[in-house]
């Protein structure tokens, strides 16, 4: 209800009130949290001074451990210690085990969302991720000494709807107010302050442990526009390790140990890789069945091993440039993100491909979290309205299943979000009142080659002759990249009811139940906090409405309309003094409803003024 923001976007309605926005990089291997401190965005350390929180959660029968200790225990208690949970978000068990074999977990079953069986009972990936987020949240509250206003959480640009929704659900479960999900490459671009540079085109090359993302961005007069994004959710530094491990197996003829000593071989491979980052030659001892091997690798050999992987990444870069309708010569700067860009041959290959030395001065582990922290500070309203504006895109096309298992695209990839597209459907039987719709995400033509996002059941369609009902279904993607579907029968104007069944996520009720059960312990606390929150919200509504009325009330409202709004505000002011959370909340909603038309007229007025060359501050 911040009507004030029409005239002064981004500006806090209560400047005296300090607002804390944090940025969180919820990574596959490690997670970080950042916030603005004395005008600079910094990653926040834990009590031991460590910035990286290993994304590992251990469920023993009497403890729940997150981070370093959990990671150290992982080898001894593998089935209760969940590592790299990000790979499971928005996925089913088969998806994950097809890619990563030898996982030590016990799953409840293999369909739908994965459920880990642990010493503390069954947990799903959303709950595990929420534990990591809770730990980061606690770190921030302790370091900053203040409650958090909200958080910006980063996701790989190539995350689909189910993975984004899962991430947002986890944050909600952790008690975080999610200001926005932003894409990791976009966050990196913010961290580098590319928005302060001259207008131009930029590329962010993000090669992590398990995923590769590339984004092409354009800066024009302070508007930062993502032109295209491309990637591969199964391409990363892990593949370098695999290539080295396979090479060791080959050299020493260790084929019989490949499965039984998989973890060990991968560890040795990683050590060799890391040594080669600043040396030309590496040796790491390897003991299998009391026999010592001494795998060695030169930089040249390593470069040759991973060349095909790098070439694959550069092919994806070509695709991104093509989709952005720019050429290599149009690119002004390249930013490197992700631990795997420390590998010298990766840097060289990127520099050769683009013909420019890439920017690397921010720690590639921290850069995403820092960018998210800067954006969070803007979104909570700590900056002036001439700050950067970020326009991001939908990374993967959205479609629906049609006859014969084919996909019809509704919203193509790289469309600027938020976006809404409507599509019309009709019934094919007399008196048909229901319809099933299957929404997919991906670029391929067959449903079986795309991700299944959700199945929607439309009901309450008025019974008519076949083909007479025209159902207009609107697919809307918000600024977080999340899909929402609504449907209406056109001739009657009646809203059709939609029930969503996410393919690999939680229904709305399940989230509510989990929240409820996690809050039961602290009911009284919660009650007091919720009252405080509603009172603060009521103040904000009152303040912004008064200011909006003072500015535009006379011009845009009839006397009757004005009177109705004034009365609703008076009632809110009165209810605010009392202690009934529900009635304050209800009255805020009433004020919202009553002032909707006023808000909409103010929006149109501001748009007209902006384009006719008059700025609002001139009036």
């Amino acid at each position, binding site marked *: 209800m911040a009507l004030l923001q029409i005239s002064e976007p981004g500006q806090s309605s209560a400047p005296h009130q300090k607002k804390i926005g944090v940025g969180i990089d919820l990574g596959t291997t490690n997670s970080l949290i950042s916030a603005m401190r004395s005008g600079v965005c910094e990653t926040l350390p834990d009590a031991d001074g460590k910035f990286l929180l290993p994304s590992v959660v251990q469920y023993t029968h009497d403890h729940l451990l997150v981070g370093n200790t959990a990671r150290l225990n992982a080898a001894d208690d593998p089935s209760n210690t969940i590592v790299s949970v990000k790979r499971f978000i928005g996925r089913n068990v088969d998806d994950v085990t097809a890619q990563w074999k030898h996982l030590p977990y016990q799953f409840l079953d293999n369909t739908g969302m994965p459920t880990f069986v642990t010493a503390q009972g069954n947990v799903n990936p959303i709950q595990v991720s929420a534990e990591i987020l809770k730990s980061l949240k606690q770190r921030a509250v302790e370091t900053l000494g203040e409650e958090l206003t909200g958080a910006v959480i980063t996701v790989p640009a190539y995350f689909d709807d189910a993975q984004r929704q899962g991430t947002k659900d986890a944050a909600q479960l952790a008690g975080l107010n999610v200001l926005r999900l932003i894409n990791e490459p976009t966050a990196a671009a913010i961290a580098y302050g590319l928005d302060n540079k001259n207008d131009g085109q930029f590329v962010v090359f993000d090669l992590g442990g398990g995923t590769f993302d590339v984004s092409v961005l354009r800066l024009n*007069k302070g508007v930062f526009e993502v032109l295209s994004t491309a990637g591969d959710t199964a391409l990363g530094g892990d593949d370098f390790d695999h290539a080295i491990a396979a090479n060791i197996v080959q050299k020493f003829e260790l084929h019989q140990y490949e499965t039984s000593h998989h973890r060990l071989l991968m560890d040795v491979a990683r050590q060799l890789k890391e040594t080669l980052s600043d040396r030309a030659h590496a040796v790491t001892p390897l003991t299998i069945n009391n026999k010592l091997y001494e795998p060695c690798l030169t930089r040249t050999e390593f470069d040759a091993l991973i060349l095909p992987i790098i070439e694959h990444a550069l092919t994806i870069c*070509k695709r991104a440039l093509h989709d952005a309708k720019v050429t290599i010569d149009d690119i002004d700067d390249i930013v490197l993100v992700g631990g795997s860009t420390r590998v010298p041959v990766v840097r060289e290959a990127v520099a050769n491909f683009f013909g420019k030395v890439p920017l690397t001065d921010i720690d590639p582990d921290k850069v995403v979290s820092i960018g998210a922290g800067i954006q969070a500070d*803007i979104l*909570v309203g700590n900056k002036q309205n001439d700050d950067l504006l970020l326009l991001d895109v939908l990374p993967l096309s959205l479609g629906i299943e049609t006859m014969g298992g084919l996909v019809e695209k509704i919203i193509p990839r790289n469309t*600027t979000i*938020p*976006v809404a597209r409507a599509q019309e459907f009709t019934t094919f039987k007399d008196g048909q009142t229901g319809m099933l719709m299957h929404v997919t995400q991906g670029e391929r033509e067959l449903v079986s080659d795309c991700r299944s996002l959700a199945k929607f059941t439309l009901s309450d369609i008025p019974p008519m002759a076949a083909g007479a009902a025209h159902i207009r279904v609107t697919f*809307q993607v918000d600024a977080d990249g999340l899909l929402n579907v609504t449907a209406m029968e056109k001739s009657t104007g009646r809203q059709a009811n939609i029930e969503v069944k996410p393919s690999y996520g939680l229904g709305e009720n399940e989230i509510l139940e989990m929240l409820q059960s996690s809050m039961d312990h602290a009911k009284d606390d919660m009650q007091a906090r919720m009252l405080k929150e509603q009172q603060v919200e009521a103040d904000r509504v009152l303040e912004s409405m008064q200011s909006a009325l003072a500015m535009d009330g006379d011009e845009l409202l009839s006397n009757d309309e004005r009177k109705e709004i004034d009365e609703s505000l008076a009632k809110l002011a009165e209810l605010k003094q009392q202690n009934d959370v529900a009635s304050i909340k209800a009255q805020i909603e009433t004020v*919202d409803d009553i002032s909707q038309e006023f808000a909409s007229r103010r929006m149109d007025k501001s*748009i007209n003024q902006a384009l006719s060359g008059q700025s609002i501050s001139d009036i």
Partner: protein
Amino acid sequence: MNYFDLFQIEMAFDIDLEKLRTHYQKLQRLTHPDKFASASDAQKRMYMQKNAQINYAYHVLLSPVSRTEHILQLRNYPLPDANASLNDTEFLMQQMELRDAMSQADTANALDDLTNVIDSQQNAIEKHISESLAKNETASNQNAASALTKLKFFTKLRSELEEKRLGA
């Protein structure tokens, strides 16, 4: 909704793209959800819908094909059926020849040459649409509509050519 009105630019095939972009950016600054991250749900919804409409309108006006369709729609001129076949035998022959040339073009130079050929023909069609749409008369709208079908052929050909260049 008239998207030319939304951006306050004159309704025509030839538009000032720089002005369109400037106005788009101004509207983005006023309506983007990031400006309303801590607003009420009702406000967020209202601005998100407006912002989505602005994104869509911008997209429609940017592309010559959808811009032409939009003008014809605003004039209540029926759009050519997407599946309707074209009666212009000469044009269809020419398209087949271009497709042949594309399947045979296997060097960067050959692809460049073909791109130039396609671009110049596409420009001629766009010029024809522009002139036809300058008047709002049934005959000229009809001219624009049939040229639009040809423009779609070229747009498709052009994007396939770009795909081929990417694969090469």
